[in-house]
């Protein structure tokens, strides 16, 4: 083998090729760098911001609610809520056990809340909103172990008046997807009014939540606060309510089941709206313990229902002035025209009894109201016929929602033949019209409707819309009845209290002059010779009283319904009397013994036998 000078040319050629390949590769890197940093920069910048910025929702304090005198109905108090950042949670099971361990709730409940929170991914969720000091301390002590948990100050509704205003204030609940879609200012998890004033005035009370933007590091630790968009607190709201009167009504109704409604008849401003029994509204200020909720639901006295707006009762004798006004206005009766009451009258071959077995003798309109003579109104109903009775009732707003801003109002029932055929599948029996004449049978109203009807009766014939915030509600509309007729009826209503035979004459002892009408709403047909005190509670009739004052120029109408109260004059009228006295500056105490041993009177007796009229109780309607 001969020695040849080493030829490096192939090596150099290959080295040059390598140089070219590497140059191309570096060019590719440069191009990629350009596309990431210049072309796609906005996208990556957004992702980087997402990484480091965390938005903490700042709750907007809800507006304060006061009554017409500035007394606080609803306010806020500081509370501490537990937030969960689902992304930070390493072991959900461990977190669940910890939260159960500090007594937050039982395991299924905690598991449910955690699982709901995990579905919302990157947003923090409120796991509990009313931590006790011990729970806060436990979370703080385990901060290093459970980075996903964080205690945040928040506010919670405080309701100083408590159960007194339970049905009025309403509850809060998390905004539903539909509500979120309808109002862009709402955010997931925000509490909004679910019922009562909270719901009706959500747009006033709600406010706009804010944000706290904080910078966090890769471990989720808060490094600094970047930006704060403070929440816009809800606006305060002054109600037409008179809290002092509401409290008085509540104490007068204590132990009773029923409701009290008081309106300013001139405007429809609601002064009292009470339903008994009530509940502690604070139970609903946060997460409700399922057991409490179940016991409230199962309570046979139905504390959750707002009887003032939702319960339906036959109006009983309280309907009589309405029909009297209608009959006068339509010329069916004159004030002087009289009927002879012998204690029993026959229609269509059946006897209809007056509540006073011996009869009232000659009875004209004003006295018929004073003594609540059934015979007079049987005859009136007979002469008027169902259509006219229904027209008069409807003119006074009965049988239809009053339009108050609170949701869930019941409509009631003013019957007609068409209704009977459609709903009951049978024709209207003429005998039923006679019963409707004294407010029994298939005619149903809410306490609020009764208050609106009496407001029209005493304000010169204007139908008002009850409302809780001054200036709201439709303007009063004339009901189209002769004002003179209304004055005649009012004279009768004055005699109910002031007259020597008045069914509520015990209220004449009040320090303020009042007028009104008693009523008894039948639960079962009355049995002969049985006093109401001897009946089981649930079979006793409902006791009603509608009162107003001052009689000549009324500024307050009060409706009282005591379920199974038995005797209107002895049970319902004293409650109304106490509220009316209070409204005009007098604290009158009518004690329980007086209620219990009061002489029963003014109990209208329904027809003893009315085979043509099938029995109708409010339960079947």
């Amino acid at each position, binding site marked *: 083998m001969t020695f*040849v000078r*080493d*030829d*490096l040319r*192939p*090596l*150099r050629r*290959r*080295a*040059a090729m*390598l*140089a070219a390949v*590497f*140059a191309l*590769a*570096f060019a590719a*890197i*440069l191009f*990629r*760098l*350009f596309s*990431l*940093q*210049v072309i*796609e*920069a906005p*996208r*990556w*910048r957004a*992702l*980087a*911001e997402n*990484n*480091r910025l965390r938005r903490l929702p700042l709750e907007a304090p809800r507006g304060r609610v006061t009554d017409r005198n500035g007394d606080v109905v609803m306010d806020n108090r500081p509370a501490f809520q537990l937030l969960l950042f689902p992304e930070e949670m390493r072991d959900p099971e461990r977190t669940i056990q910890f939260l159960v361990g500090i007594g937050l709730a039982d395991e299924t409940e905690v598991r449910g809340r955690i699982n709901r929170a995990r579905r919302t991914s990157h947003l923090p969720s409120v796991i509990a909103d009313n931590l006790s000091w011990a729970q806060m301390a436990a979370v703080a002590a385990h901060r290093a172990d459970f980075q996903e948990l964080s205690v945040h100050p928040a506010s919670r509704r405080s309701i100083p008046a408590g159960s007194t205003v339970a049905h009025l204030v309403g509850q809060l609940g998390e905004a539903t997807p539909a509500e979120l879609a309808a109002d862009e200012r709402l955010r997931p998890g925000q509490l909004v009014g679910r019922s009562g004033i909270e719901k009706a005035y959500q747009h006033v009370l709600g406010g706009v939540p804010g944000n706290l933007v904080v*910078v*966090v*590091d*890769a*471990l989720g630790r808060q*490094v600094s606060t970047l930006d704060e968009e403070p929440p816009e607190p809800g606006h305060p709201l002054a109600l037409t309510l008179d809290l002092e009167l509401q409290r008085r009504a509540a104490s007068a109704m204590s132990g009773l089941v029923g409701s009290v409604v008081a309106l300013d008849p001139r405007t429809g401003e609601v002064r009292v709206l009470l339903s008994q029994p009530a509940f502690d509204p604070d139970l609903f200020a946060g997460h409700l313990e399922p057991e409490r909720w179940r016991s409230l639901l199962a309570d046979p006295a139905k504390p959750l229902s707002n009887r003032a707006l939702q319960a339906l009762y036959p109006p009983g004798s309280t309907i009589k002035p309405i029909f009297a006004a209608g009959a006068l206005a339509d010329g069916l009766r004159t004030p002087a025209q009289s009927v002879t009451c012998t204690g029993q009258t026959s229609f269509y071959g059946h006897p209809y009894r007056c509540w006073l077995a011996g009869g009232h003798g000659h009875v004209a309109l004003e006295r018929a109201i004073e003594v609540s003579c059934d015979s007079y109104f049987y005859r009136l109903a007979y002469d008027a016929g169902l259509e006219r009775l229904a027209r008069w009732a409807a003119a006074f707003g009965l049988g239809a929602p009053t339009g108050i801003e609170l949701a869930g109002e019941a409509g009631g029932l003013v019957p007609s033949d068409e209704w009977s055929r459609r709903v009951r599948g049978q024709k209207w029996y003429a005998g039923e019209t006679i019963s409707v004449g004294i407010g029994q049978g298939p005619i149903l109203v809410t306490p609020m409707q009764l208050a609106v009807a009496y407001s029209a009766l005493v304000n010169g014939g204007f139908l008002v819309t009850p409302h809780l915030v001054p200036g709201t509600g439709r303007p009063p509309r004339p009901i189209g009845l002769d004002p003179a007729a209304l004055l005649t009826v009012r004279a009768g209503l004055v005699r109910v209290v002031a007259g020597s035979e008045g069914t509520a004459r015990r209220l004449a002892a009040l320090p303020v002059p009042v007028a009104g009408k008693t009523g008894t709403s039948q639960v079962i047909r009355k049995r002969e010779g049985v006093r109401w005190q001897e009946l089981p509670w649930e079979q006793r009739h409902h006791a009603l009283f509608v009162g107003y004052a001052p009689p000549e120029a009324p500024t307050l109408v009060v409706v009282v319904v005591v379920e199974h109260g038995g005797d209107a004059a002895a049970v319902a009228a004293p409650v109304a009397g106490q509220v009316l006295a209070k409204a005009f500056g007098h604290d009158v105490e009518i004690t329980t013994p007086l209620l219990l041993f009061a002489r029963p009177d003014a109990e209208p007796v329904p027809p003893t036998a009315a085979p043509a009229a099938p029995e109708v109780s409010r339960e079947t309607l």
Partner: protein
Amino acid sequence: MKRFDLFLLGALVPIIVCSHLAQSSTSRALGQPAFASRQLAWLLAGVVLLILFSLADYRILVRFAPLFYAVAILVLAVLPFVAPLRAGTRSWLVLGGYTIQPSEFARVAVLLAVAALAGRHQRETLSAGTVAQLTALVAVPAVLVALQPDLGVALTFVPILAAALWLGGMPWRAWLGLLAAGLALLAAAWLWYLKPYQQERILTFLDPARAPTGAGYQQRQSRIAVGSGGLTGKGLRAGTQSQLRFLPAQRTDFIFAAWAEETGFAGAAVLVLAYATVVLRLFVIAIAGRDREGVLLAGGIGVVLGTQSLINMAMVLGLAPTTGITLPLLSYGGSSVLATCICLGLAQSVWRLRFANV
């Protein structure tokens, strides 16, 4: 000074400056300011080594290559028995308070040994025997490093072999055979060597949606860092991804991402161009080399540093899976800095002695 390649030395200046600035920034983010000054000390020591090796005669070092190689193999062989377990590997030798990563220096020895072996073969293409010897020469230390286990560094041995075979010359049939062998090796490595997390990394790279919070997390955070840097960057020590520690391994594997975030395309492009200049100048030196050994040595160094830089950048930019390959000089690590500087010094020596009459 004409004997030095001023392009290469000039390109090192921005790299050293960038390295120090980037290390200062990430050291602050990680709350360990001492690391930045340590890296700077190594870089300066590296420059001294670079000059020393430039002044040496690479031909003498190539002649002693078998000795260096033998020492390197010996150290790598005993390393598993003397090295403490750190981060799951036995890669570091602890000597009087200093930790040394022998695999980085072993690479220099392998580069010299490969140049010596391939340089002896004075034909247009390499013989089958030489190919086999070269393969064994590289495979032995590579396997030893892989067993530490340090896959990232082990992979950096592969380009040494590839460079020698390419520069030495091989018929295309041989390339095919080698490619097949390489693929078989990869398959075997996948089955028996790679840990599940390493397999996961590769699968994640192939399908990024696979694990957005696991193995894909690092690459995603890296791309967010780079992309959010924009044209001019967020400012030194103001990168949110690095300063808030969303960026993983920001002192080592992902230092380029931290730099790109804080200085933007402007700063990152300067660095890429500086690396490109260094690598391309290494090939220019190779082409200018006076003998086979010189061409093979400088070319080999060019391929090693070039592939290492490119793979690291590609990983940071989401173009390659995360392999644990660092960016020479920029990533934190004394052994790597010093070994890289020795290589650059050797290349300078090739350049200095490029004329046959010196």
